[in-house]
């Protein structure tokens, strides 16, 4: 990342959170968050446990709508069509069809490898075998899993190793060609080798998709992301180029967290 950093104003924007508040019942978990998400870049969300980074991530695909008592105020606009993802008139299912998510714990369905990757397409009404096969292969290749599973697509997914399962979940999320890929601590349940392969994959994937990743691991944020946002108790403390956040943070709080004096 030695090349000069482009001016932020010239970067294409993929999404923008504006004055975003989020409530679990009466508890306010996010406070007035304003943050840009740049297109085809990796943005990392870091901060101590309970700071709201996962809550923020799950706003993007309206996962909070699955549980009662959750409330959004403010907006997350998705570009280029500038639609507010959180608006009541926008169907959460439509949002989830545009943005995919990879979870903390690998969560393949107890189905075959093929059916796992094909599921997003099936939900979209794709049932032609030839199309499914083509898209499944493409997604598995993009997730760097194709060579390992091409001869056993009809095996049950839970027979894969943890790292393979997580890459399968990434393939499942990629198969539907999402506009943003959301990662919620994707390597926290994996060993260092599997973690390294997922990180490498994330770096490659930003060629084709905008990525937002929550991580507990600061080195991981430093390794994979272009931008980093540091959050603390529901607030966005600092956002900027990852180099800047890690080398010369503006906020003393961020610095304390980055250097391990706190958190």
């Amino acid at each position, binding site marked *: 990342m030695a090349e000069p950093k482009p001016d932020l104003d010239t970067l294409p924007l993929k999404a923008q959170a504006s004055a975003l508040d989020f409530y679990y019942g009466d508890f306010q978990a996010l406070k007035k968050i304003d943050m840009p998400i740049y297109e085809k870049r990796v943005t990392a969300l870091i901060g101590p446990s309970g700071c709201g980074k996962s809550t923020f991530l799950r706003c993007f695909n309206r*996962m909070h709508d699955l549980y009662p008592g959750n409330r959004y105020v403010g907006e997350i606009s998705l570009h280029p069509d500038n639609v507010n993802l959180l608006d009541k008139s926008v169907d959460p299912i439509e949002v989830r069809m545009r943005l995919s998510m990879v979870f903390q714990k690998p969560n*393949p369905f107890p189905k075959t490898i093929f059916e796992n990757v094909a599921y997003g397409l099936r939900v979209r009404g794709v049932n032609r075998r030839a199309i499914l096969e083509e898209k499944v292969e493409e997604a598995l290749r993009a997730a760097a899993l194709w060579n390992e599973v091409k001869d056993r697509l009809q095996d049950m997914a839970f027979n894969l190793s943890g790292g393979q399962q997580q890459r399968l979940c990434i393939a499942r999320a990629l198969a539907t060609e999402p506009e943003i890929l959301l990662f919620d601590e994707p390597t926290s349940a994996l060993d260092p080798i599997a973690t390294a392969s997922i990180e490498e994959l994330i770096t490659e994937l930003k060629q084709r998709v905008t990525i937002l990743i929550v991580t507990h691991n600061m080195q991981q944020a430093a390794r994979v992301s272009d931008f980093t946002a540091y959050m603390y108790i529901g607030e966005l403390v600092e956002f900027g180029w990852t180099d800047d956040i890690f080398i010369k943070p503006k906020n003393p709080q961020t610095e304390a967290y980055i250097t391990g004096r706190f958190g």
Partner: protein
Amino acid sequence: MKQSPRSLRSLPPRGHVSTFGRPGGTDMARMARKDIGEIRGIIARAKRLDVIFGVAGLLALGLGLLTFATLFVDMALDGYSRLTPDFFTEFPSRRAERAGILSAWVGTTLVMLVTACVAVPLGVAAGIYLEEYAPRNWVTDIIEINIANLAGVPSIIYGLLALGLFVYEFSLGQSILTAGLTLALLILPVVIVATREAIRSIPSHIREGAYALGATKWQVVQHHILPYSMGGIMTGVIIGMARAIGETAPIITIGALTFIAFLPASPVTGTFPFLSFEWLQSPFTVMPIQIFNWTSRPDPNFHANAAAAGFVLVLMTLTMNGLAIWLRYRIRRNIKW
């Protein structure tokens, strides 16, 4: 006891503790040995309780099993002489040695068929609704509490309800349909509870994974919830059916006959449309009623018939439970998270 020297040796070497400068550095070592003795005493006492409970549990289990085994063997011995092929193909008769359970087992089978056809779709649908669709509020809470209570309502109450509702109000008569519906009501709470338990055992991250791909509620239910919980649901259904198959009180209440010397109309016919539902309106008897009828006769020969029929009924129940276990095993094998 043989192990004690080795485990002592695994303590830190003595040189380690004696560096504290005291010439009699073995103090610490001696203390450590005393502590070990104390710890072993505590363990021994705690383990004594282990043994006591182990024995008590075994006795409790043995008592239960022995009672059941005695009953079962006694029944088998009493009824053994009557367990001939003819016993299954003869109608009841005034002469004990010619009487059989044909109308009873056919009646039981048909009633169970109606029960399953009604209770399974209703119970599974209600269970899915409560788990996946119902809003979390006080109305749902009250419904949930009442379903749990319904499972404890005495079966004769269901009989009274059925007599008033199905026999008189809907004029369904004292028929197989009425009995099937009554027993379906009876096991409905069991099926609902089993469905909900099975659904709840699906981890939330699997469900979230499906929703995150843009699935609707029904797609999640159809592609994930139902297939993954099928083992648990089937088990619950069969256990409910095994309860219903032995129910006597509600069937007597709705007025099943105790002496039936004919079979209901066949469900399959030779003429178009080849299916007939006339059997639903047929009078009937079931196994427990046949047993009850024979037991109340003074002639001991009939008691042998009752024992034989009881043996068959228990076998039917055990077979159903075995089927439930097998099904659960088969389905669980393909599901892991």
